[in-house]
């Protein structure tokens, strides 16, 4: 089996099949279905204005994107005025170099990290390791998967694929200074052990790296939203605070950010408000007793600027709440690693082709049933299915889709252009299928329907009633009393 760290979007089909067979993963994924969905809907029901807030949240980010150059310049100006520094990074390489340069200037040996998806996107951990700097993840979930040498499988619950027995195994393997026969059976003991282990790391780190949920143009502030408090210890204790943020995170004012706070926590974890929402503005000030001496913001583009004016512009509104992952039937069946990309689930299916190219990531926008739940729950009203369709079109137009699929689509579109041929073909195949199904006495199973192995390999294909929909429709119009289409309206 491929390890999660080696998975790629190209391997999606194989990885998804393996995920479906993975008993321990399937057990863990039950926690997505049972936890997040119910919590969100309860929180939403408690706030009558939730839908109106979503509309406003969308307007705020649309306004920002329509004026993004001006807001980024204003943000930079205010960071500098507050004594901070802004580093612009066009791509992964540049962002990595910016982080390394800052770390080297202060001779950093260990770096603590708050949870950051952009940090994952630019692979900052392996890069720092290659350069002799030890990155220490401090979010509990991130810490667990760092020990397990895995990438996160969910954008807000990185270790959602791990069961507690596996957490205990990882702690036994890595915390070798502790007695082997200690109790690691309950969650409280596991949490207490991680807390104790990470205490010293917080205090000894030279640099703290966090992400940013929002950047505020008005004040040059960066915002992190967390529950554990690790992000705050990460950014307050070391001498240097580095904020990694992608360019679309900027919002105009503190008031605008407040509106987004209201939709973020409820959509993500179903909380009224996350425990810690921290707004940071520049380094420690004269007379301050604590806080970092330097404040750096690395602004990462990595393909996002090209989305403006494209079919995928709306993904720039995404606030990374994870609601689309939690409500996605594909995500909850295969988990996050199968996608082979930093961002899994519906938002990942749209964003990954931006970062890696459609050639590399083409399977992802195809892995959707278009059920539309992602768009329904998105606090920012992002039309995710529509954008997946745009990627499918792009893939088809560039000749990147698999040959059999292209050939079948071409054949279908030619046939559909000739109604008599289409009807004839449909009548013949339906008649053949009904006869065969009658003989079987049950729906089609594996290997019983040519060209449909991809379907019947996993579930039965229902037997047709005997005539095509079009003939049934015509018949019903002629004899309204018969209503062959079902029990009536």
């Amino acid at each position: 089996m491929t390890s999660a760290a080696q998975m790629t979007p190209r391997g999606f089909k194989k990885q998804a099949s393996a995920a479906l067979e993975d008993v321990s993963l399937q057990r863990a994924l039950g926690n997505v279905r049972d936890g997040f969905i119910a919590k969100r809907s309860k929180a939403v029901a408690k706030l009558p204005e939730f839908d109106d807030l979503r509309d406003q949240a969308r307007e705020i980010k649309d306004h920002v994107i329509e004026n993004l150059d001006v807001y980024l310049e204003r943000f930079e100006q205010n960071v500098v005025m507050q004594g901070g520094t802004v580093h612009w990074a066009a791509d992964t390489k540049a962002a990595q170099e910016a982080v390394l340069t800052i770390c080297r200037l202060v001779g950093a040996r260990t770096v603590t990290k708050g949870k950051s998806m952009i940090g994952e996107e630019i692979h900052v951990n392996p890069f720092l390791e290659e350069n002799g700097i030890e990155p220490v993840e401090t979010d509990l979930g991130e810490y667990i998967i760092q020990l397990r040498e895995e990438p996160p499988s969910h954008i807000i619950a990185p270790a959602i694929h791990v069961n507690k027995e596996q957490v205990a195994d990882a702690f036994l393997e890595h915390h070798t200074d502790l007695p082997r026969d200690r109790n690691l059976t309950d969650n409280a003991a596991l949490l207490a052990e991680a807390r104790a282990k990470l205490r010293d790391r917080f205090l000894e780190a030279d640099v703290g790296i966090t992400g940013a949920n929002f950047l505020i143009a008005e004040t040059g502030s960066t915002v992190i939203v967390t529950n554990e408090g690790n992000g705050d210890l990460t950014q307050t204790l070391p001498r240097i605070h580095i904020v990694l943020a992608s360019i679309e995170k900027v919002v105009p004012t503190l008031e605008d950010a407040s509106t987004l706070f209201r939709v973020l926590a409820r959509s993500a974890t179903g909380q009224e408000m996350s425990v810690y929402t921290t707004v940071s503005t520049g380094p420690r000030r004269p007379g301050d007793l604590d806080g970092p001496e330097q404040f750096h913001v690395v602004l990462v583009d990595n393909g996002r600027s090209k989305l403006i004016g494209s079919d995928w512009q709306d993904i720039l509104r995404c606030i990374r709440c994870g609601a689309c992952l939690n409500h996605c039937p594909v995500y909850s069946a295969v988990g996050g690693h199968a996608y082979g990309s930093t961002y899994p689930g519906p938002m990942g299916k749209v964003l990954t082709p931006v970062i890696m190219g459609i050639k590399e990531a083409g399977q992802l926008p195809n892995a959707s049933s278009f059920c539309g739940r992602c768009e329904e729950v998105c606090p920012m009203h992002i039309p995710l299915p529509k954008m997946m369709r745009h990627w499918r079109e792009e893939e088809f137009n560039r000749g990147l889709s698999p040959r059999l699929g292209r050939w079948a689509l071409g054949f279908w579109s030619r046939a559909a252009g000739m109604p008599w041929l289409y009807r004839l073909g449909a009548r013949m195949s339906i008649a053949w299928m009904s006869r065969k199904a009658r003989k079987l006495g049950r729906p089609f199973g594996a290997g019983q329907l040519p060209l449909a192995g991809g379907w019947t390999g996993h579930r039965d294909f229902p037997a047709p009633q005997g005539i095509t929909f079009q003939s049934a429709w015509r018949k019903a119009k002629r004899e309204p009393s018969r209503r062959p289409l079902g029990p009536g309206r």
Partner: protein
Amino acid sequence: MTDAAPLPSARAGILGRIQSRLDARTDRTAREASAKERLADRRANLVPARGQLAPADQVNLFVRMAEEADATVTRVAAATDVPAAVSDWLRQNNRPMNVRRAPDPTLDAYPWAAEALLTVEAGKAESTDETSVTAAHCGVAETGTLMLTSAEDRPTTLNFLPESHIVVLRADQVVGSYEDGWTLLRQTQTVDSGWIMPRTVNFITGPSRSADIEQTLQLGAHGPRQLHIIVVGEAADDDNAEDGENSDNPV
């Protein structure tokens, strides 16, 4: 343009790409005007009705929401009662009788010496500190959220490093919404050139927690395991309420 930007070509590249795409739709002067207006306006968006109550009801809502988020709350009549309330809480929770408090003038004024068994030191948090005491900027009723600001006499580490965190909040510092909190900040933190954004603003709703292991909630991840709020006094009189009837009913 800033001279400090270490990667000027990257900056020009990114901003150039954004600009050329936006120029196809709007012109730069229109964008500048639109952003300038919004930044000057600082207009509040929709504020939920939940927190828009008479002051006394706001305090009650704050308390209820904070407790729902697993914080504990006690109410005392006067600021002079705070040290005794701190001692009581420590005793009831079997916590060591020593606290690190912010060197905040608000807290300086309290009669700490009256608590003979309580050791009180002022300063930033040290890794060995068990319990911290800080004063709040305000409390937001909507979600039971504390708003704490950093300053010379309000070190941020006190909010995160100790095992337990006690926050003192005057009832008349409770506001309805986050927006009200910002407005208050803009009114109080001013110098000649305008208002000053504190280096750190912490919105805190309950004690630290994590659900990262099997989505099961556990309190006390990396920040304080316990958050205790001491609400002092009564809410300010409601201008709209007659006979002050709203302020007669403390929880």
